[in-house]
């Protein structure tokens, strides 16, 4: 048999890619043979092309092959010490109320989660358990909501350890936000692969918060993915807060499928982590649905945060809005890539996208790449992007009223970020993020 050597296979694999293959081969992961087959297929797909690099268009500004020097070993299940040290995780959300679920080093910890008095219509189960027990809901939806091919997602599918499966029954309104707190405790670099599935049935409502944190200076790695099914006429508010430690590498994928008249409000607040990538895939498949996706990143030092969106308008008469803002100090770098695709039958689509970067230093950098692919003829689509410094006229006006320079800058930065944060419906969450921004501004030199 003739041997085929496609260029990519002939390429020498990087240390990280070789380590990932070893980790995958040795890992004991939950799930039956069927799940195992899914994992193997996903890993093959990943291995075919390896870690994404700058010549892969969707990863153009975040060359993971170059930036991810090694692959960390999978985090061991949390012991008593790890659990004890994770007790105060999620402190950012003290007043929000809501039901808190805690994940330590990639594993769900029911003892530290609030599972009491579950309202009717809300079902929560750990992903590891769902995979192990062959949960039918998980089998039906996991990996099937959206046709996405992405190396980070493939890697997640291959190595997914734990996470949560959430089901909200039809016409059930869950008033209290569900807060998923993911904490890494290990000071030595470990890797976690978390996968969650959220199915919100027709007419139901859910507010979901994800919060990620871990120790500073530890070069741990997090690969997280959440799939969300937003049923007909339902509404999901999703806020993801990334406060990872100073040396962490964090790649997250959010996949949302919207049915008719569904509402999806999605917000990404990024303040921590050395390298953060949030990739969001939204498929609007039912008429009259609307998606609002926003983001705020506050970065300093050499932080790098990448927000990459892909919005696919499949059905007509739908609306999508994207507003992404970044505040960049020192040598920080922000990347925004936004793609809006309007399929041939998605007439009357109304899609708008805006990205704005505020540079606080001469060495900060922002890259923005909007893409519109429109195959329907009766649509309204627009995009805009700006990059600039704080307005010196506004700063002078504030100073002329007695506000010291640093406070004047803080007020203007808070206002800049405010457009994103104020769009969140839940008042307590708005307050938490406004305070987080104030904290970031206080620490600014």
């Amino acid at each position, binding site marked *: 048999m003739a041997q085929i050597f496609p260029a990519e296979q002939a390429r020498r694999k990087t240390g990280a890619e070789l380590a990932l293959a070893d980790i995958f081969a040795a890992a004991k992961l939950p799930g039956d043979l069927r799940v195992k087959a899914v994992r193997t297929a996903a890993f093959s797909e990943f291995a075919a092309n390896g870690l994404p690099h700058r010549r892969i268009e969707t990863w153009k500004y975040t060359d993971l092959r170059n930036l991810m020097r090694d692959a960390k070993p999978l985090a061991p299940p949390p012991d008593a010490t790890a659990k004890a040290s994770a007790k105060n995780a999620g402190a950012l959300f003290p007043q929000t109320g809501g039901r808190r679920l805690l994940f330590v080093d990639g594993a769900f910890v029911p003892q530290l989660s609030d599972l009491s008095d579950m309202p009717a219509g809300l079902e929560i189960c750990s992903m590891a358990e769902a995979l192990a027990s062959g949960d039918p809901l998980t089998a039906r939806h996991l990996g099937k909501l959206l046709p996405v091919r992405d190396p980070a997602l493939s890697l997640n599918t291959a190595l997914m350890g734990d996470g949560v499966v959430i089901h909200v029954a039809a016409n059930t309104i869950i008033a209290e936000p569900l807060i998923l707190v993911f904490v890494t405790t290990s000071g030595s670099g470990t890797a976690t692969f978390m996968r969650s599935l959220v199915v919100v049935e027709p007419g139901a409502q859910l507010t979901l918060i994800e919060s990620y944190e871990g120790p500073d200076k530890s070069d741990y790695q997090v690969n997280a993915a959440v799939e969300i099914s937003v049923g007909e006429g339902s509404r999901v508010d999703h806020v993801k807060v990334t406060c990872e430690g100073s040396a962490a590498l964090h790649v997250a994928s959010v996949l949302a499928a919207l049915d008719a008249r569904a509402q999806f409000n999605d917000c990404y607040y990024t303040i921590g982590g050395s390298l953060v990538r949030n990739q969001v895939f939204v498929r609007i498949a039912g008429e009259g649905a609307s998606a609002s996706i926003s983001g705020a990143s506050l970065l300093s030092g050499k932080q790098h945060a990448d927000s990459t969106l892909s919005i696919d308008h499949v059905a007509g008469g739908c609306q999508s809005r994207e507003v992404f803002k970044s505040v960049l100090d020192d040598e920080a770098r922000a990347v925004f890539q936004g793609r809006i695709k309007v399929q041939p039958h998605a007439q009357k689509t109304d899609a708008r996208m805006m990205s704005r970067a505020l540079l606080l230093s001469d060495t900060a950098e922002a890259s923005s790449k909007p893409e519109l692919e429109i195959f329907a003829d009766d649509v309204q689509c627009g995009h805009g992007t700006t990059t600039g410094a704080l307005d*010196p*006229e*506004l700063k*002078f*006006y*504030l*100073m*002329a*009223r*007695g*506000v*010291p*320079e640093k*406070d*004047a800058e803080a*007020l*203007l930065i*808070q*206002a*800049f970020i*405010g*457009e994103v944060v104020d769009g969140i419906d839940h008042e307590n969450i708005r307050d938490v993020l406004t305070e987080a921004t104030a904290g970031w501004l206080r620490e600014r030199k």
Partner: protein
Amino acid sequence: MTALLEIRDLQAEVAGKQILKGLTLTVNAGEVHAIMGPNGAGKSTLSYVLAGKPGYEVTGGEVLFNGVDMLSLSPDERAAAGTFLAFQYPLEIPGVATMTFLRTAMNAQRKKRGEPELSSPDLIKRVREIGDQLGMNPDMLKRPVNVGFSGGEKKRAETLQMMLLEPKLCVLDETDSGLDIDALKIVANGVNYMRSPERGMIVITHYQRLLDYIVPDVVHVLSAGKVVRTGGKELALELEATGYAQYLNEAA
């Protein structure tokens, strides 16, 4: 007695071009001075130099405020020391609530002076009182600073800030521009309310009209970066009749 404001032989340039060419002026507490002059005389430059705007470079002379060298202070320090510039074109600050702005400004000044901060309820009460006095719609206070305000509303908002902050020296830069006669009267009432034996004012204007409502003690004519004539309030009327042509010739 030390003068409230003493400007001696002030020279300043903007983008390398000299605008103020040896301006001398003294304002005592209790006095209202009007500065009039043709376009390009340096009226707005003077106001920005006094407020410390970046890009307005002082190349000579000095400015003493209560005997203290004002030019060595940053804009916020000048404000805390008791100076206030009412802008010709007040800026819109999207995303900053008017009340947050007022509270931040007020308490930053008080903090710098070593005074206790004003509580939010006290501040809101005071702002509402002043707003009523100026005939402002209370909804304006709920909007971001000056955003969507008409020209008249912006000038009222400036007057409100001035009345709230109670400065010792008020510099009003072309407060009358963009105002209809009713708004002009209201703003002038606010300014007149502020007149006191402890306070000095500089009213910069191109037209005499404003001075019908804010009657000055002293009128200066500024031309080509210098005070070319000083007189009483009747000088403004004379200028209204004769125009600035003679001073332009004089300066040239």
